[in-house]
């Protein structure tokens, strides 16, 4: 297993785009963790500073200031924490719910299996953002509610993926042999099925993180995220609209931040797919 991991890492290191993606993701993590030290005005992120409002970028305010006079560069750094938290928790919950359900549905035949997959179909019958909007709106604008709305709409993607993968592994001879040896279903699933389908799950998680960041930003933009003065990126862009076209930096900076981070996750995900999941191509051709 260890040599396998080393092999994956070595192959990944040869893919320049994937490496750039990895660097961007690591940089985002560093920004989130070290925000108080990297920020030029760590204490002024949510303070009202009317004398300095809507300043264009200069050597003091690297990316300018917002409507309250807060430093946008510092706010972006603290916003990275929110972005990372939303993406990791939302995708984490979706995996924790979606993967076991996919395994259960994939390994059994019967009512429960059918029920799970039909429920997944129902959630997939509405574009994710529409359902997420409906749920987030019902729950009320707050950070945990946005995370809940995103997880509640993202789990079926994992269920469907794991279901399909489990079905194709289930009929392999080595699974049959394990069952014949008297292994319990739980043992078969955890020790024999799961390790064989973990690659596509990892790829989907990586790409899903980028996708979730985009959706979360859209929810924030619509006013469904954490309430102000949280330095959430999507909400910051919404706030900036009143001050356009003069305060262009106000809208440009957070949008670029979102773009960079999502590009990072996508490039890393594409690279991982090439290395881990050779059956599918970079362009994501679905398996027939």
């Amino acid at each position, binding site marked *: 297993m260890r040599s396998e991991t080393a092999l994956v890492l070595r192959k990944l290191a040869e893919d320049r785009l994937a490496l750039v993606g990895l660097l961007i993701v690591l940089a985002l993590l560093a920004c989130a963790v070290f925000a108080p030290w990297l920020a030029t005005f760590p204490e002024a992120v949510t303070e009202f500073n009317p004398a300095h409002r809507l300043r264009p970028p200069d050597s003091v305010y690297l990316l300018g200031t917002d409507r309250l006079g807060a430093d946008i560069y510092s706010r972006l750094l603290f916003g990275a924490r929110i972005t990372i938290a939303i993406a990791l928790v939302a995708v984490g919950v979706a995996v924790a719910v979606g993967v076991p359900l996919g395994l259960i549905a994939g390994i059994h035949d019967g009512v429960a299996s059918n029920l799970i997959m039909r429920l997944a179909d129902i*959630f997939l*019958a509405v*574009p994710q953002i529409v359902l997420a909007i*409906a749920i987030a*709106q019902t729950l*009320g604008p707050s950070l945990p509610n946005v995370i809940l709305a995103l997880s509640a709409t993202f789990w079926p993607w994992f269920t469907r993926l794991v279901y399909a993968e489990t079905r194709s592994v289930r009929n392999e001879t080595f699974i049959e042999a394990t069952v014949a040896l008297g292994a319990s279903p739980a043992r078969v699933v955890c020790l024999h099925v799961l390790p064989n389908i973990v690659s596509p799950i990892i790829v989907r998680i990586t790409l899903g993180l980028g996708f979730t960041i985009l959706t979360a930003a859209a929810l924030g933009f619509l006013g469904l995220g954490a309430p102000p003065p949280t330095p959430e990126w999507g909400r910051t862009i919404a706030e900036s609209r009143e001050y356009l076209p003069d305060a262009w930096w106000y809208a440009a900076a957070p949008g670029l931040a979102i*773009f960079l981070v*999502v590009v990072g996750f*996508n490039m890393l995900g594409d690279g991982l797919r090439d290395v881990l999941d050779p059956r599918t191509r970079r362009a994501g051709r679905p398996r027939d």
Partner: protein
Amino acid sequence: MDNGKGGRLKQASALWHGPGLATFALRRLVWSVATVAGVVAVTFLISHVIPADPAALVAGERATREQIEALRHQLGFDRPLLTQLADYYLRLAQGDLGKSLFTSRPISADLLSRLPATIELTLAAMILTVGLGVPIGVLSALRRNTWLDHLVRLVTVSGLAIASFWLAIILQLTFAMDLGWLPLGSRLPSGVAPPPTVTGLYLIDSLLTGDFATFGTAAAHLALPTVTLAFPAMATIVRFTRAGMLDTLNKPFVQYERAMGLPESLVVWKYMLRNALTSTVTQIGLVAGALLGGAVVIEAVFDWPGLGYYAVNSIIMSDYNAVLGFTVWVAIIYIVINIVVDVLHRLIDPRGTG
């Protein structure tokens, strides 16, 4: 479905008249009704169970306890949940989605009046997506690893990573505010009367009535929202078309057709593309969903008076009924599109197993 090895005519006739497609479509239809019922149940339960007190929310902060109780009774929120759900189904079957909690207007009528704007926008975006995305994907595959291919890849990577509402704002900033070439938003300027309603799509209606001035104005208003909405979707289509073309590039049948001396353009744009398109068509169903979802946010940015704009306004006013009605409509539209895509897929690739 087995079409044997018959000629194309026989194949096509088997498709249309054989039991395969009809059974398939019927089965899909039954499942679709069940799925819509499921969507209603899920969104209904979410919107009626989670809020601590929807009636209090509707009544507002200054309402007395008696007023809230009266409103709760009036809205039917005091009945058992399953009764409310059954009632909702019953009325949905008649096309009734209830009334807006704030304007008291019937939601179906509200949605219907905004549907043409959304259809016009998503249709234009779909045409742009496929019309540009497929040729770009083909060219990119034919000239793989040239500067063109790399440029296309850069653009598609951006398309899948850019926040559409941000792209919308940047385009507004550049083309509307800065250069002044295109309007900021809405379907027509406030002074201009919309063309007489035939289809509800301003572009088509203005052409039908020969009103070319209005056509130009409407087209200018449509340009920025369409480009914004189409950009991410186009990235997906380009990627899948490119991959599909690369897959067929060295297939024996392509070599055979080349060896037969068929013109290269015919080989590429007819035979290879047809093969490559099967995976693209599947994607079009997903893209339609992405366009519908994307329209919600983009309509809000461009003040485009469609379904999404209505939904966002309903969100701001916490109008549960309207948001629920919108979700049900989107589910139905999305499912219908997917059935159409599945049927199309079978027509292009009769081997398909669904």
